[in-house]
């Protein structure tokens, strides 16, 4: 069974640009979560999508946004990139049991 897949693996952008990250959940999982992990810092909750709706949001500015598609895949958009947005962005999916299954992440570097 395929796990959570994320693309791209690496992304390099410059300040002010926009970045789009994509995530495909495990088959049968309807919830998708996005986390940010900056170097040396812990996982910070960004967004939770379930059944196509945004269910919860972390303490991040509005330039962090996303959506979930009818096939439950998701994308995370980061507008007006800043240097401090450089981080590993992790996507996870789950059923109702609570366990999160993470992808390998997308490493975003902002120059």
């Amino acid at each position: 069974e395929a796990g959570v897949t994320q693309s791209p693996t690496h992304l390099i952008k410059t300040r002010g640009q926009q970045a789009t990250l994509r995530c495909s959940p495990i088959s049968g999982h309807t919830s998708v979560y996005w986390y940010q992990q900056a170097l040396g810092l812990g996982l910070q909750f960004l967004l939770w999508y379930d059944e196509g709706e945004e269910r919860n949001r972390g303490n991040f500015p509005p330039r962090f946004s996303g959506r979930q598609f009818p096939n439950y895949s998701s994308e995370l958009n980061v507008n007006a990139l800043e240097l401090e947005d450089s981080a590993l962005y992790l996507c996870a999916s789950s059923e109702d049991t609570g366990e999160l299954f993470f992808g390998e992440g997308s490493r975003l570097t902002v120059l």
Partner: protein
Amino acid sequence: EDQVTQSPEALRLQEGESSSLNCSYTVSGLRGLFWYRQDPGKGPEFLFTLYSAGEEKEKERLKATLTKKESFLHITAPKPEDSATYLCAVPPYGWGKFQFGAGTQVVVTP
């Protein structure tokens, strides 16, 4: 306010030297405490879920226990392949907004 605190921040062990990691939490009405393992540059890998005080779960050389205020991850006779950062997480506001601890980085040397 920190609701999940892990200690120590880092742990260096000799192969075979057993030790324990701590995860303390302050949320009330715990809906579960989750342990994950994360290798450098990769996504966390789910290990255990504990739901009630007194519960224990085991997987190979790892054993997780839960009390009303903290959880311990015991590593028995560790091997170098157990080197990783171990994270604990709780859902203080219900599913969807898990709060992760900062993690304990474990290095096991031969």
